[in-house]
């Protein structure tokens, strides 16, 4: 009986995962995107062609859509004109800023991975846990932090003037600010994914390379790097997709001058021009899914085999010699960058929450206390928001981890066609948040008529399901590479000893990739904590609001004046609760962690 159940567990898990996806993702999103190709009940590619053929959207490429046969002539003209600079329209710009953001995130994130994976120092584990914190911060709070840190009168300029360097103005409202903010969100992603990969590199292989004459650096390049590249590319892919779909942070720090496609998509939804919104959403989705597919194809071709012996860490501090070691000095410099880019905005937000127009104040926290004590209906209280956030986070973690693992098992041991399945299963990463929100509204909140009954989904269960769907790809992105690196003989051994496929997974595979599962779990929790769109849609009544929802409500509240003070106070609460949660998650789950 039990064995039977064990044998069925994985297939059932697959079916359940797919069912959840169907209900809270594919169906809602499909119901929106279908409008891109269906007009008046008939299939048409007209709207797609209109957008692609509009120079505003696609710049130079618009011509190729409208008149494919004119391309050679056009190219010729371009060559004759001496290669003038080419505009690629809104899509082009969106991709360009995403590419820049990706590069920046990787550049900022990689040294962090090196530090965390290869050096031992006091607080390493804590630091590793906290890397995920930026991930949960609402963009308005990041905007506040960036303004206070990098603004004309920001902390950075204050500090620079102290050391006698002139103010660096003009960062804000430029592409630089947007790219930096994207790095703020995504560099930690790079760091986390790469650290996990780095920690599973086989030490013996590195030693082989060294004994064959490779210097430390060469051995890194030839043996370690190939094992890191997939992780770096995963992180880069995710960053690119996220920043391609980025929207509020772009407007808040860059302005409409730097608008992305998502800004347009949102405006269309606001205007209830849902057909056009669907068209934009479809193009975005096709682009990001194609990229995902190509990446997964690449990833599957990488051979990865995890060694039994892992690299040992260096001590970060080696006494006075620390200051003479260029690598360690470099890491120190990197530490300064991290403090400026990450700690700066976060600390600025906290400082903001403690200042008012007349200097230091606790008014913002008094505001929180007042909300907590309030009696009026519709009041958003901070503590229930904290509680709900934590509960949903936990629920999401409990649901998203199994879902992600199931998908990873399919992906790691799957055969033909599993790349396409994996791509489709990764779609929650690649579809515009606005589209997902709209889809949920139209199908789950409004309800769907099934056999004469109108089924409406909302409330805590729906929220957790929605969060889990948004979060599980992070679990599987972390776990898949780790799983496929496990020596298959270990699995064979376990099975020959009598373990069913499920037990092998539980007893052998998951413990071996515990670090990756944990990383995924932390992401799942973070996604849930930071999630806003679907939470607010699916919150019916006042009992299911979360910290970001509360924060957003306090933004509009001016009882402490027309400032973001109350929101920053809530942001600080969010920050602290999140940080504490991650420390706990990592400590509880970190027993197997290297």
């Amino acid at each position: 009986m039990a064995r039977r159940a064990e044998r069925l567990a994985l297939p059932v898990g697959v079916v359940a995962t797919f069912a959840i996806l169907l209900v809270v993702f594919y169906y809602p999103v499909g119901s929106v995107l279908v409008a891109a190709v269906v007009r008046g009940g008939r299939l048409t590619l007209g709207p797609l062609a209109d957008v692609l053929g509009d120079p505003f959207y696609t710049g130079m490429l618009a011509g190729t859509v409208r008149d494919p046969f004119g391309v050679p002539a056009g190219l010729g003209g371009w060559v004759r004109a001496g290669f003038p600079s080419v505009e690629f329209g809104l899509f082009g710009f969106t991709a360009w800023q995403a590419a820049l953001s990706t590069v920046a995130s990787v550049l900022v994130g990689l040294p962090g991975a090196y530090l965390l994976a290869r050096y031992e120092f006091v607080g390493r584990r804590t630091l590793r846990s906290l890397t995920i914190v930026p991930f949960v911060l609402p963009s308005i709070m990041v905007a506040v932090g960036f303004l206070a840190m990098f603004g004309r009168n920001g902390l950075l300029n204050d500090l620079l003037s102290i050391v006698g360097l002139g103010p660096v103005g003009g960062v804000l409202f430029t592409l630089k600010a947007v790219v930096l903010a994207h790095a703020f969100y995504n560099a930690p992603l790079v760091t986390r994914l790469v650290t996990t990969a780095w920690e599973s590199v086989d030490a013996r292989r590195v030693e082989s390379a060294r004994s064959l004459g490779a210097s430390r650096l060469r051995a890194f390049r030839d043996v370690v790097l190939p094992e890191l590249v997939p992780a770096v590319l995963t992180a880069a892919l995710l960053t690119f997709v996220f920043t391609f779909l980025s929207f509020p942070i772009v407007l808040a720090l860059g302005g409409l001058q730097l608008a992305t496609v998502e800004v347009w998509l949102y405006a269309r939804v606001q205007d209830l021009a849902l057909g056009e919104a669907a068209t934009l959403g479809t193009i975005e989705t096709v682009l990001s899914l194609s990229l995902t597919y190509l990446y997964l194809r690449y990833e599957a071709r990488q051979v990865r085999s995890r060694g039994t012996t892992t690299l040992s860490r260096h001590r970060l501090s080696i006494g006075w010699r620390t200051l003479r070691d260029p690598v360690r000095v470099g890491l120190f410099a990197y530490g300064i960058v991290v403090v400026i880019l990450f700690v700066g905005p976060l600390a600025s937000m906290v400082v903001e929450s403690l200042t008012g127009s007349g200097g230091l104040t606790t008014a913002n926290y008094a505001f929180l206390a007042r909300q907590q004590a309030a009696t009026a209906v519709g009041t958003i209280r901070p503590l229930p928001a904290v509680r709900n956030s934590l509960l949903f986070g936990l629920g999401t973690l409990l649901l998203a981890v199994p879902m992600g693992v199931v998908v990873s098992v399919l992906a790691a041991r799957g055969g033909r066609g599993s790349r396409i399945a994996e791509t489709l299963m990764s779609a929650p990463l690649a579809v515009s948040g606005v589209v997902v929100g709209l889809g949920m509204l139209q199908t789950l909140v409004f309800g769907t008529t099934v056999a004469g009954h109108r089924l409406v989904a909302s409330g805590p269960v729906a929220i957790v399901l929605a969060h889990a769907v948004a979060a599980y790809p992070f679990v599987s992105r972390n776990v898949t590479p780790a799983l496929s690196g496990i020596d298959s003989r270990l699995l064979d051994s376990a099975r020959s000893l009598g373990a069913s496929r499920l037990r092998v997974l539980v007893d052998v595979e998951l413990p071996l990739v515990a670090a990756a599962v944990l990383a995924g779990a932390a992401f799942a929790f973070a996604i849930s904590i930071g999630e806003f769109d679907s939470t607010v849609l699916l919150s019916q009544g006042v009992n299911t609001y979360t910290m970001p929802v509360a924060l957003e409500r306090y933004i509009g509240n001016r009882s402490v004046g027309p400032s973001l003070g109350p929101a920053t106070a809530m942001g600080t609460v969010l920050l602290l609760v999140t940080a504490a949660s991650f420390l706990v998650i990592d400590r509880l789950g970190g027993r197997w962690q290297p």
Partner: protein
Amino acid sequence: MAAVSERGPADTNPTGVELDDVTVRFGDVAALRDVSLAVEDGEFFTLVGPSGCGKTTTLRAIAGFETPATGAVRIGGREMGGVPPEDRNVGVVFQNYALFPHLSVRENVGYGLRFHDPPGEVTTRERVDDLLSLVDMADMAERDPDALSGGQQQRVALARALAPGPDVLLLDEPLSALDARLRERLRVTLKAIQRDLEITTIYVTHDQAEALAVSDRVAVVNDGRIEQVDTPERVYREPASRFVAEFVGDNNRFEAEITGTDPPRASVDGLDVTLPNASDVSAGRPVTLCVRPEAIRVTDGDVGSSGAAATTMTATVESREFLGDAYRLHCRWNDRSVLVKTGGRRPPEGTVRLAFDTDDVQVLTDE
């Protein structure tokens, strides 16, 4: 200790293993081609063969890790198609140990007992302790596999496979990383356990002395095919093919021509060699004569004790290897290299006379 015995097929075959025309492919490579084998219940069966010939693949097919492209695997008479590995009750020791790195030595050994009751009236803990002492690892029970030497890991892998009391034990070079002393001890233990518990055991080793010493029967595998299945003595003394003759043990091979049939005799480079009476030869046929190095005596001058029956030749010793209990001499005779194994304290040097008996000549007719 292992006595060689020729087992007849058992009437009941509760845990015998049969392969029926099994072919296993990796992409284009056929690692096994139409392999048929019948391992009796309780038999100690050994696979030998060159590296890459398909030994590991055979074990993996039996354990259920490879699905044969064609053919069937049966355990205890039951067709195994579709039976997952965990339901075959097969213990496996892998060539690379494959210990669970996240479990201690004790937990590794105890792992299979999560799914099976320990055999006999003992607790899991007792069973694990017993097995750990058996492989001499009792004092390292709490270590992680990472902190073990290669041989120690191999011993743990062995204990782990034995713990649940499998019906069939598949051992892929389980002792290859051990020193001779320990290897022998474990081999004896293994054999004793195997005989006590009547576990059908299929053993892969590249150590031929071990294969011959320990096995009830030996299968010689070459390039994905079975060349011969027989008792150790028969495989050694009556090789079915030139490959077997060459592969199992040292051998000297002489191309020869039959010059007479009654008594059968042949000529090697003009040297007249009397063949054993039973030889099935016809005149003029090219044959290969094999003489084991230990069957060749070094006789400083005279023909040797066996008198007229012996063939003799004059050769020069080119080099020698010390083997402990003997020397292996590389001699040259008529531009041919002749291998001789001889005991004694001082190995002969320079020009020597070599002699071998008629009975020690194996005749292989070319296929």
